[in-house]
C-alpha cells in the first residue's frame, strides 16, 4: 500500500466522519426534540454515547493489536496499536468530560461508580501509562514491546474491574442508574444518536488510518531496504 494513497484515503475518511459529526451536532442543537424529564442537558448524550462507543472500540483494537504485536512481532501491529490507543485517549477524554457533566444533572453528582464510567477511567489511565512508558524507553523496540505488555495486561484486568465496580455499586443503592437507552427513545432522538454514532466511528477510523500510515512512514522500516535494493 503506497503511503500517499493511504494518506488520501485516511483524509477522506476522517473528513467524511468530521462532516457527519458536524451534521449530528446541528441536529443536536436545532432538530432533535428536547427530552422531557432532563431538559437541554440530555443533549450531551448524543456526544457522550458515541464517544464512549468509539473509546471502547479504540481501546479494544489497541489491546488486540498489542497482543498481535507480542505474538507476531510485526511492526504493523504495533503501529495499529499506537494509532488506536491515541484515538482511545482522545475520545475517552471526551467521554470522561461529557459523562460527569450529564451525570451532574441526571444523577445529581459528577462522579458515580457507574461501571462503564469507572472502567473507562481506569483504561484511560492504563493507556496514559502506555504512552508514558513507550516514550520514555531509550531502546525503541523494547519500548514498543513493554507498552504492548501494558495494553494486554490492562485488558486482562477488565473482568475484575467489572465485578468490583458492580459490587461496589450494590453497596451504595442510592446511586440510581438511569437507563438512557430506555424503551421510550423518541425516533428523532434515535436518528440523531445513530448519526452521531456513525460520524464518530467513521471519524475515528479515518484518524486511525491516518495515524497508522504516518506511523509506518516515520519508521526506518525493516522490510523496505531489502525490497528497494534487490541488486
Amino acid at each position: 500500500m503506497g503511503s500517499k494513497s493511504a494518506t488520501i484515503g485516511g483524509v477522506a475518511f476522517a473528513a467524511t466522519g468530521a462532516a457527519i459529526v458536524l451534521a449530528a451536532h446541528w441536529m443536536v442543537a436545532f432538530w432533535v426534540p428536547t427530552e422531557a424529564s432532563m431538559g437541554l442537558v440530555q443533549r450531551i448524550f448524543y456526544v457522550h454515547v458515541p464517544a464512549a462507543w468509539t473509546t471502547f472500540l479504540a481501546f479494544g483494537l489497541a489491546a488486540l493489536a498489542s497482543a498481535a504485536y507480542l505474538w507476531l512481532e510485526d511492526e504493523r501491529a504495533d503501529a495499529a496499536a499506537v494509532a488506536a490507543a491515541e484515538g482511545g485517549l482522545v475520545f475517552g477524554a471526551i467521554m470522561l468530560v461529557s459523562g460527569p457533566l450529564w451525570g451532574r444533572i441526571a444523577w445529581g453528582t459528577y462522579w458515580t461508580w457507574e461501571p462503564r464510567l469507572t472502567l473507562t477511567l481506569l483504561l484511560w489511565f492504563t493507556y496514559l501509562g502506555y504512552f508514558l512508558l513507550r516514550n520514555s524507553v531509550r531502546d525503541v523496540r523494547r519500548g514498543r514491546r513493554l507498552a504492548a505488555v501494558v495494553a494486554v495486561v490492562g485488558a486482562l484486568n477488565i473482568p475484575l474491574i467489572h465485578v468490583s465496580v458492580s459490587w461496589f455499586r450494590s453497596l451504595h443503592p442510592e446511586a440510581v442508574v438511569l437507563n438512557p437507552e430506555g424503551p421510550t427513545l423518541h425516533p428523532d432522538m434515535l436518528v440523531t444518536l445513530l448519526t452521531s454514532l456513525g460520524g464518530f466511528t467513521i471519524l475515528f477510523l479515518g484518524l486511525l488510518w491516518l495515524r497508522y500510515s504516518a506511523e509506518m512512514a516515520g519508521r526506518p522500516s525493516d522490510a523496505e531496504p531489502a525490497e528497494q535494493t534487490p541488486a
Partner: protein
Amino acid sequence: MLRWAWLIAVKDLRIEFRARGRFLAMIAFVLLAGFLFAVSLDRTRVDARDVAGPLVWLVMLFASTAGAGRAFDAEDEAGAFRHLLLAPAPRPAIFLGKAAANAALVAAVAAAAFAAFALFLGIRAPGALASHAGVLLPGVIGLAATGTFFGRISAHSSLGDTLLPVLTFPLLVPMMFFGSTGTARLLMERPWSEVAGFVRLLWAFAVGSMAAGSLLFRHVVDD
C-alpha cells in the same frame, strides 16, 4: 521450574537480608504512616475501625509500590540481571522466584501495617488474626506479583519509579476494593461468611497476576 524459582528467591532474600536497607525503609514507612493517620484523624468524630481497613491496604499499597521500584536494584547494580537471563532458567521461573521473594517482604510490610494500626489507633482484633491473615495473604501475593512485573518494566523507563504507580494503580483498583472492604468488615467483627466472597476474588487476582506475570515476563525481559 520450581527449582530455579526457589534458587532465585533464596538468593534474593539472602541479599535482602544482608542489605536490609529496603526492608527497613519499608517497615519504617508503614509505622510512620500508621502514626500519621492516628495523629491526623479526629477520633472524637471518626471511629478508627471504620477507616482502618482501607488505610491498612493503602499503606500496604504505597509501601509495596515503593519497594517494588527497588526490587531489581541488586540485579542492575553491577549488571547481574543480564547474566541471570543468560543462565538457562526459564523466564516464568525467574518471575516466580523474584515475585516470591518480594511477597515475603510485602507480607512483613502487611504485618507491620496491621500492627501499626492496632498500636496507634488502638484497634483490637480479638482472636481474628487468622481471618485477617486470610484476607491479607492473597493481597500480599497480588501486590508482589504486580510490583515485580511492573517494577521490571519501569526499570527500563527513564521515568523510573514515577511511572510505576501510573501503571499499577489502575490494575490494583479491584484488589484494593475487595481487600479493604474485607479487612474493614473483619474489624467490625462481622463473620467470615461476609468476607468469603471478597477473599475468593482476591485469590482470583493473586493467582491471575502470578500466572499472567509468569507468561508475559519473557516479553518484558527478552530483547
